[in-house]
């Protein structure tokens, strides 16, 4: 899908107008950003917004996220283990220390 983010009041209200008059194109709506259908029409509306507010509209393309394909098993295992931790107040950094689970800095460094 196309993620449309607006950064000024006027761009935000233009986005609101698109949402009002083109419900079919707008898949999801989050106030000043929205997901448009990844169709030519979705792109048309997104580009129209950016044409009108060149500096205040960001368009990104999203894609489905499959953790089994994109995320290494060690990260998924860490998530599962952390969810099962004994004390809910333990921060992840403390939880991971001295275990086989990846530490925060390492995960931050590694790109998907």
């Amino acid at each position, binding site marked *: 899908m196309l993620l449309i983010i607006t950064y*000024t009041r006027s761009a935000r209200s233009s986005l609101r107008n698109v949402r009002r008059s083109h419900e079919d194109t707008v898949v999801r709506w989050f106030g000043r950003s929205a997901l448009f259908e990844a169709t030519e029409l979705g792109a048309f509306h997104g580009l129209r917004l950016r044409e009108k507010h060149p500096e205040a509209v960001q368009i990104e393309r999203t894609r489905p996220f499959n953790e089994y394909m994109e995320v290494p098993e060690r990260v998924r295992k860490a998530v599962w283990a952390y969810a099962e931790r004994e004390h809910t107040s333990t921060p992840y950094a403390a939880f991971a220390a001295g275990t086989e689970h990846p530490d925060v800095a390492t995960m931050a460094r590694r790109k998907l």
Partner: protein
Amino acid sequence: MRIERNGSVWCGRVIELSGVTPRFDGEQVLDAINGTSDELRVVCEKPGDLHAHVGRLRPGMTLRRSAALAAAARSRGWSAPQDEEYEKIQGRIEELSIPDTDTAAARKRLAETTDEIERQRERVARLQGKVKALREHPERQTSEPYRALERAMQKLSELETEHAAAEQTLERARERQRQRHDRHDERLALEDRAANLARAARKHLCDRLHGEFTRTIESLPGPDDDPVTVALTITRLGEIRAPVVLECDRFDNAQTAADWLNAPVVSL
């Protein structure tokens, strides 16, 4: 005030133009009061914020009621408790400088080199096929396909270098854009706060004038929800020094209107 048209001059706090030919146009008189008319000259006090709401009173007019009422309160010199905070936020919004970044050129260059590389790869593959075929027939005495392949591969490598450079340029542009979006976010949050404060200030001022407004509107003939009735009331409640263009027949004459409104009047 003083109105001049084609050598004719009208002067006074109250000017009656209803019998004059050719007729005056209300819109044009209002423009002249605002100093934006070429044909007509009106010398008068500079119109303020309240005048922008009630400068021309005529049937069918539109009125933003609470904004106008708040402007009337302001014209009396009233202020709202939110004003100070509002000014502070406006100052911060003005100080926020947002650098220009445009990634369109970088995006376009990247797309173009991607296409060119694709075409060039196909060309190289084609030439490789030719060269291979030629090797199978050593009796043909030509080196042209070898040279063409060499040139094509050279060109491909140049394109790939250019593509990598375009990618880097876009990456840097994206980084700058991210910083700019942070600034935009900051400004948007400030603007939303300012808008909330302005709304609260308007409400405060309207509430403060409400009692007086109700008493005044009751003293006027005509329905309470009519924009002209409301606008006349708001004009009376405020302090207005620039002339009001009157195009309704709620008063016996222009003088009575001016007395009731407590404002200079041009009656059409």
